[in-house]
C-alpha cells in the first residue's frame, strides 16, 4: 500500500523534501514508516523516536496504517 509522508522544518531540510510517497507492506505500522525513512540520505538527523501524526492526529509508533494515510513526522514544536 501507499502512504504519504510529510516532513517539516528541520526534518524537511534534513531529508531534502517536505513530502514523499512511500510503498509499504499492507499492515505496516508507524514505526515501519520511520524505519523506511531512515534509509534516506540525511535521515541520520532524525531523532531515535520522532513524534508522528497520522491524518493530523498524534499517533503511537505501534499504530497500524491504512492505504492513503498521511504520516507526518513532527519536529519539536516551537509555536508561540
Amino acid at each position, binding site marked *: 500500500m501507499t502512504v504519504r509522508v510529510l516532513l*517539516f522544518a*528541520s526534518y524537511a531540510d534534513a531529508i531534502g523534501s517536505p513530502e514523499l510517497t512511500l510503498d509499504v507492506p499492507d499492515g505496516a505500522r508507524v514505526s515501519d514508516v520511520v524505519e523506511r525513512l531512515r534509509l534516506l540520505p540525511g535521515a541520520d538527523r532524525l531523532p531515535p523516536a520522532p513524534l508522528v501524526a497520522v491524518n493530523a*492526529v498524534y499517533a503511537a509508533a505501534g499504530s497500524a496504517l491504512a492505504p492513503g494515510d498521511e504520516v507526518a513526522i*513532527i*519536529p*519539536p*514544536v*516551537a*509555536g*508561540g
Partner: protein
Amino acid sequence: MKDPVHVALTHDPIHAQELIDAVASHSCGAISLFLGTVRDVNDGRAVTGIEYSAYVAMAEREMRSIVDEATQRFPGVRLALLHRVGRLELGEVSVGIAAAHPHRTPALDAARYTIEELKRRVPIWKREQYTDGTREWVDPTARRAEVAL
C-alpha cells in the same frame, strides 16, 4: 464569536482589539489577553526576525482541541486563539489569545492554559534569523536539555 474565524492560523497581523472584541460580552467582567511577540534576543543570539511555518490542518485541529478543552475546564469562558505564520519582524505578534469570563480567575487561568498547551503540542515551527545572516530552526527540547546541564 464565530469559531472558524477566531481559532486559526493567519498570514495577517494579529490585532489585540480584534481578539478582545471576539470574546467580549456584557456577561463577562474579565478579559485576559496574551500576546507572544518576536524578541530581539534568544539564547544569547541577536535575532532580526522569525519565520513561522506549520502543519496547517493539524495545527488548526489542535488549536481547536485546546480551546474546546479550556472551555470544559473553565465553564463559561469565551476564547479566541490566533497564530501567525510567515515572516515576522521584531515586535510583531506571533500568537494572540483572548479569554473572557464573568470572573477574573477563570479568564486568567484559561489564557494561561491555552498558551501552555499551544507551546506543548501545536505543530508550529520557527526559524530564527540572526544579525550575522544565518538562520536556524528553534528546538525548545534541545534548549531545555542544555539548561538542565
